[in-house]
């Protein structure tokens, strides 16, 4: 018996927001990006959930992993580079919720 993978909810170009959550354990979502809005750059594939794998559990349901692109000027209020600078971050689906319509 096996747990089915979580199916992808988002596609490249979709606007998303990173959940602002403070969960204990092995989290691969950097603190600095929680609560921020970005755009899906690509779906990378489906991978075991690191928050489960870290405790030697099976990591199921496996989660879609995305690369999400954020505007640096929105991530850091005092960012000093041009408004076009960006940061791409790998984020698992269970950390993402649909973003506001553009």
């Amino acid at each position, binding site marked *: 018996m096996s747990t089915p993978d979580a199916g992808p909810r988002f596609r490249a170009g979709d606007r998303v927001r990173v959940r602002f959550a403070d969960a204990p354990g092995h989290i*691969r*979502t*950097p603190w*600095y990006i929680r609560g921020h809005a970005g755009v899906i750059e690509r779906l*990378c*594939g489906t*991978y075991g959930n*690191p928050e489960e794998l870290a405790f030697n559990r099976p990591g199921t349901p496996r989660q879609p*992993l995305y*690369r999400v692109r954020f505007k*640096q000027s929105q991530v*850091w209020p005092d*960012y*000093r*580079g*041009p408004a*076009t*600078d*960006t*940061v*791409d*971050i*790998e*984020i*698992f689906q269970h950390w993402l919720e649909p973003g506001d319509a553009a």
Partner: protein
Amino acid sequence: MTAPNEPRTHDHAHEHDHGHDRGTHPPARPDTDDSLTYYKTMEIAVRELLIEKGIITADEVRGAIEAMDARSPAQGARIVAHAWTDPAYKARLLADPNAAVRELGIEPGAYKLVVLENTATIHNLVVCTLCSCYPRYVLGLPPDWYKSRAYRSRAVREPRTVLREFGTEISDSVEVRVHDSTADMRYLVLPERPAGTEGMSEAKLAELVTRDSMIGVARARAPG
């Protein structure tokens, strides 16, 4: 029995004669292998047990370490130089990096490689803010600064200042795109081919492709 992490210094006050006061030799640099942490002790215990039970041999352990240390940025440079000289290969490398590096006889392992092309309008920079994820099989072991807290926090927050400290000035008309390597991807920057390299052989081109240019903190070397 010495407790783990207990420093074995010579800071004691009793008297004995082994030459403390004789010379003016500089202070000895502390050995890095003289204190056993919990995990170092566990590694030794597990390794010795596996060898004792005949599951692995000491020579296999040694060989695995040797193979790990043998990986070097020369692999990545070979990939970049090939992409510079063969546009069809470059297209395959950007579309399906794992398959493209296998074409050159390089085994990508479990991680998915993402190749980031620097252009006249985009400069890519790689960091792992959470730990030190790094594509070791194409770049070898990461430099110490890549693992430092300073680089990991600042590369994402003030990338242009960090780039300037590495001697890399990026015009404001070029987008700086930072890639935070947080999960199952590994990143290789495909630097721009330097001017004045027309007609150079692939092997000569590979010599211009430095480790730092494939992390994105520098450009490829200029020829000559």
